[in-house]
């Protein structure tokens, strides 16, 4: 996606090898590269630790100074918004120390920034391993994160399972803020399936319902990927949000289906409303649902046998 043309100033960076030390030109901190974590649209992320210390961080090296700096700007204004909010509510949010510092490498001059290392597996892997019954909980956490972003005046933009990390014990975090931007601006980065415009279901102006739409597609993708794939195969002009609503209606969980329907139609006025609705209907219904267990065949047989025995015993007692 980011091929360099003749006017782009920065050259693409070679991969960093384990053990390499990246030194900040402005702040002087030294980071030792551990291994490659992944590649986003704006840069490559490595697992690092400060030289001589144990704590691990994620370090992102940008392909392009401008793109990376805009991402850093979003992260820093989010950070200060969260700090203000936490001071008000006196509750420490786990996201408040996401961003650590930005700098340029003293050798090579490439721009990078350092963030908290979010350990875990991408959402789709997590759910396929642990089962879709986790979706109620993970979905609630994701909607919480989105609400936090929206309250600070930003949208996430490129919401998809690949951009959600889930820890071993089910704590979900958004990663890769490359697509994030101020509310009411045009959406910078998006992924076809999760994009409202792709489904002819609305504009590409970043508003709260844009993220909610992407979230709803994310749920559909996790629960019925084949159906989504089918729906996307149509001609571009005939694709519509109704196709997605139909997919949602086929889901066994009716409460989830009606929540998705609202999100796909842009029916929530705020993401806080969407979150509360999810919490009341989708999350609790999953939470308290007792596991239906089939009675094993041998138990039925044993029960019938004991009934026969009882009848025989009664007969035997009264007969004699």
């Amino acid at each position: 996606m980011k091929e360099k043309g003749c006017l782009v100033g920065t050259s693409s960076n070679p991969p960093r090898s384990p053990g390499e030390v990246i030194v900040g030109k402005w702040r002087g901190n030294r980071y030792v590269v551990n291994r490659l974590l992944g590649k986003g649209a704006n840069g490559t992320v490595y697992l690092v630790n400060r030289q001589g210390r144990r704590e691990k961080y994620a370090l992102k090296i940008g392909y392009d100074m401008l793109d990376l700096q805009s991402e850093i700007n979003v992260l820093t204004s989010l950070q200060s918004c969260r700090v203000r909010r936490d001071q008000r509510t006196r509750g420490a949010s786990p996201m408040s120390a996401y961003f650590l510092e930005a700098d340029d490498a003293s050798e090579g001059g490439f721009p990078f920034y350092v963030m908290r290392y979010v350990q875990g597996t991408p959402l789709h892997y997590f759910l396929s391993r642990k089962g879709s019954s986790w979706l109620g909980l993970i979905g609630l956490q994701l909607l919480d994160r989105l609400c936090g972003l929206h309250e600070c005046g930003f949208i996430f933009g490129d919401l998809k399972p690949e951009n959600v990390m889930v820890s071993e014990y089910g704590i979900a975090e958004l990663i890769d803020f490359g697509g994030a931007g101020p509310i009411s601006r045009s959406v910078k980065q998006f992924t076809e399936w999760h994009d409202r415009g792709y489904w002819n279901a609305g504009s590409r102006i970043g508003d709260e319902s844009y993220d909610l739409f992407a979230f709803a597609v994310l749920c559909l993708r996790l629960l019925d990927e084949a159906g989504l794939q089918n729906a996307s195969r149509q001609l571009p002009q005939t694709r519509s949000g109704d196709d997605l609503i139909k997919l949602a209606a086929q889901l066994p969980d009716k409460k989830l289906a009606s929540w998705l329907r609202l999100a796909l139609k842009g029916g929530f006025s705020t993401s806080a409303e969407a979150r509360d609705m999810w919490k009341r209907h989708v999350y609790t219904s999953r939470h308290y649902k007792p596991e239906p267990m089939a009675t094993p065949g041998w138990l039925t047989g044993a029960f019938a046998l004991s009934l026969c025995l009882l009848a025989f015993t009664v007969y035997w007692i009264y007969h004699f």
Partner: protein
Amino acid sequence: MKQILLITDGCSNVGESPVMAAAHARQDGITVNVIGVVDYGTIGELGSREIDDIAKAGGGLSRIVGTPQLAQTMQMMTRKTVVQTIQQAVNKEVKKILGEGSLDDLPPAKRSQVVTVVDELSETAPLRLALLIDASASMKPKLAAVEDAIRDLALSLEAREGDSEISVFHFPGSTSEAAVLDMDWSRNVSDIRTLFGKIRMKGATPTGPAIFKVLEHFGYDTLDEHQGRLAAHSDEGEGMPGGYVV
């Protein structure tokens, strides 16, 4: 800001050099981006070098992709070019203030502020984008995909805060014309209906003359606007409004 996005699948073979035409565009403050669309086989060394050269002369970007990546590539290029145009103007100002260097040399805190301004201008500055579509015989199977990609691009531009207008040309034209206007400047996606429904395909590829034709079209418009704005914008040569100074 003014841009031309040329979508083609091979070498030009008639008329003036497209590289020269692109150089003229750049002189007029219009950036030229080029996408080569290839679904089967390759575009050939000659074709890919021409695509590269047109973009270099036009101060823009070039890429060769298959139809599945077309929509995404068009958006990426348009967006990048908008940002670059702003960045170049901002770099000039930075150079004026610091005497030397550019945005990359600023300390992080200052850079963050400047990039906020670049982002702001990239979103709000008015943009005119002319799409020039090669409709020679070999492009025929790809035109449906091109049309979808144009619609998708228009949807993205419509979401910008700044005024964004698209026009669409295809080439070659009937007999005397190098390129035909399919849709004049428009702000609405809904204006794009069937663009290339009734094109009769021909073999020739007069890329150079077609670019000149599009330049002319940009020129007519500027003449109209110039009457009223001559005094306000004295340095329009950069291809962005002169009023923006950081």
